[in-house]
């Protein structure tokens, strides 16, 4: 469990990035921080691994204030996937992935073997292991970033717009991969995005932020969709534009779901009671 307690951050140049932010992030679930550019998402995320220290308030992991933990030790047990992949340009893919385990004293051969496994996990061909980051596509680099984040088998995984630089198809692929990973490995994932669809797809809990880190609404995707807390949320999730107000229409004997403008959004195959299955975003 990660707890933000009345956290504020004012940067030395006077920018007030976050003010009095309090949120609890439950363990073994995905919490998504979503909001438009500059609202303080990265700042909040980096407070968890002490890349940013709050000006006031505190951040606690399982009840322990991170301010009392040595930052180097803290960072080595938290996976962090950066907004730009943040790979070391002079190291091969495999060595980038093995960086943190080797810092932790894992023998090189063992760390590299594990790195190869992680490449499978994130869907990277092993033949790319000996390439340098500059020789990879943006999407491949981001996968390497994810693999590096997973390399120490961290309980907590921080992901800052990790799929920003890839096309929609690869992106959907990576999102599916992350859903699977989270389900199988039960990590506490804190995910940052400005894409509300991505937030609803991945998040057990979604925190919608306004400028200055003000929480506009917090809840499950369903709760937010069902009852947007205010105008801002309604407009942010697109409810006001009719994008999410779906209706059922009958066409050729099939129930088709259409949006506010009458454009088809999908096919109705039954109710959830029939399917008796669910999950985040389903």
């Amino acid at each position: 469990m990660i707890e933000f307690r009345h956290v504020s951050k004012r940067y030395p140049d006077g920018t007030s990035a976050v003010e009095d932010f309090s949120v609890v992030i439950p363990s073994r679930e995905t919490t998504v921080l979503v909001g438009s550019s500059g609202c303080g998402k990265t700042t909040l995320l980096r407070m968890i691994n002490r890349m940013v220290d709050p000006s006031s308030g505190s951040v606690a992991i399982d009840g322990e204030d991170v301010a009392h933990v040595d930052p180097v030790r803290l960072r080595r047990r938290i996976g962090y996937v950066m907004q730009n992949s943040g790979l070391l340009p002079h190291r091969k893919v495999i060595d980038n992935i093995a960086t943190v385990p080797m810092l932790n004293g894992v023998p090189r051969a063992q760390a590299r073997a594990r790195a190869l496994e992680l490449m499978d996990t994130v869907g990277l061909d092993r033949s790319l292991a000996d390439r340098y980051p500059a020789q990879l596509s943006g999407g491949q680099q981001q996968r390497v970033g994810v693999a590096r984040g997973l390399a120490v088998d961290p309980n907590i995984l921080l992901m800052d717009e990790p799929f920003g630089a890839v096309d929609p198809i690869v992106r959907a692929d990576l999102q599916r991969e992350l859903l699977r990973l989270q389900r199988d490995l039960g990590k506490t994932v804190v995910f940052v995005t400005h894409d509300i669809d991505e937030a609803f797809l991945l998040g057990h809990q979604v925190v919608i932020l306004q400028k200055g880190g003000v929480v506009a609404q917090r809840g499950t995707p369903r709760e937010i969709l069902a009852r947007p807390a205010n105008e801002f949320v309604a407009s942010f999730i697109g409810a006001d534009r009719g994008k999410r107000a779906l209706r059922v229409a009958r066409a050729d004997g099939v129930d088709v779901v259409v949006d506010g403008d009458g454009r088809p959004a999908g096919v109705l195959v039954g109710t959830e009671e029939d399917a008796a299955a669910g999950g985040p975003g389903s």
Partner: protein
Amino acid sequence: MNYFVGAIRWVLDPAHYPGPNGIPVRMAEQLWYTALTLVIACAIAIPIGYAIGHTGRGRAVAVSVTGGVRALPTLGVLTLVALWTGIGLQAPIVSFVVLAIPSILAGAYAGFEAVDRNVVDAARAVGMTGWQVLARVEVPLGLPLLIGGIRAAALQVVATATLAAYVGSGGLGGYLFAGLQTRDYEQMLAGALLVVVLALVLEGLFALVQRLVVPRGVVAQRGNVRTRPSRSRPVMGDPIEEGK
């Protein structure tokens, strides 16, 4: 043109090879002064340059001090130090070190500053200590500019090392001063030619070193446009072109 042919003939004359005043010995002396100077200058300038580049502090001081030092005429420094230490190797080496330090210092801190700030940030974020960031990220990624700085210094020193003869030490400068005294211009020009040959050899050597020590990923990256600028401060002092 006649002088030129004469100088080449002088260089090729077998009589000028044996003995302590022969071409091989003189060239070896010249190289030895250059190498010794570079080692000492590196030992002084690289730690300081790295400290400046890593912490981002003290840069303004370094720029103005090295700027001032660059303006010192080497012959003046040499004479001054020689008045103190007398005839011998100390005075020339001290003045050559003074000549070499600015380029190497600038190469060291400019190399660190050229490292993408996002990469340094990422290295810290995955849990590297300050020393690990320095040794595993900044040093390897800063090498191209550092070597460029050493290369520039080496060329300056190998040419200027002729001044060692001015205070009675050896080196190729011996031919220049002897030639000047006896109006043997062919000998003077021959000495200069030999210096040029040494400079070219050093150039080749540094090109080779650069290829060997610069991390391969950095080379691979060169063709790409950097997504974000590195630290945005303008690079002052002498521009270093090599290895950019």
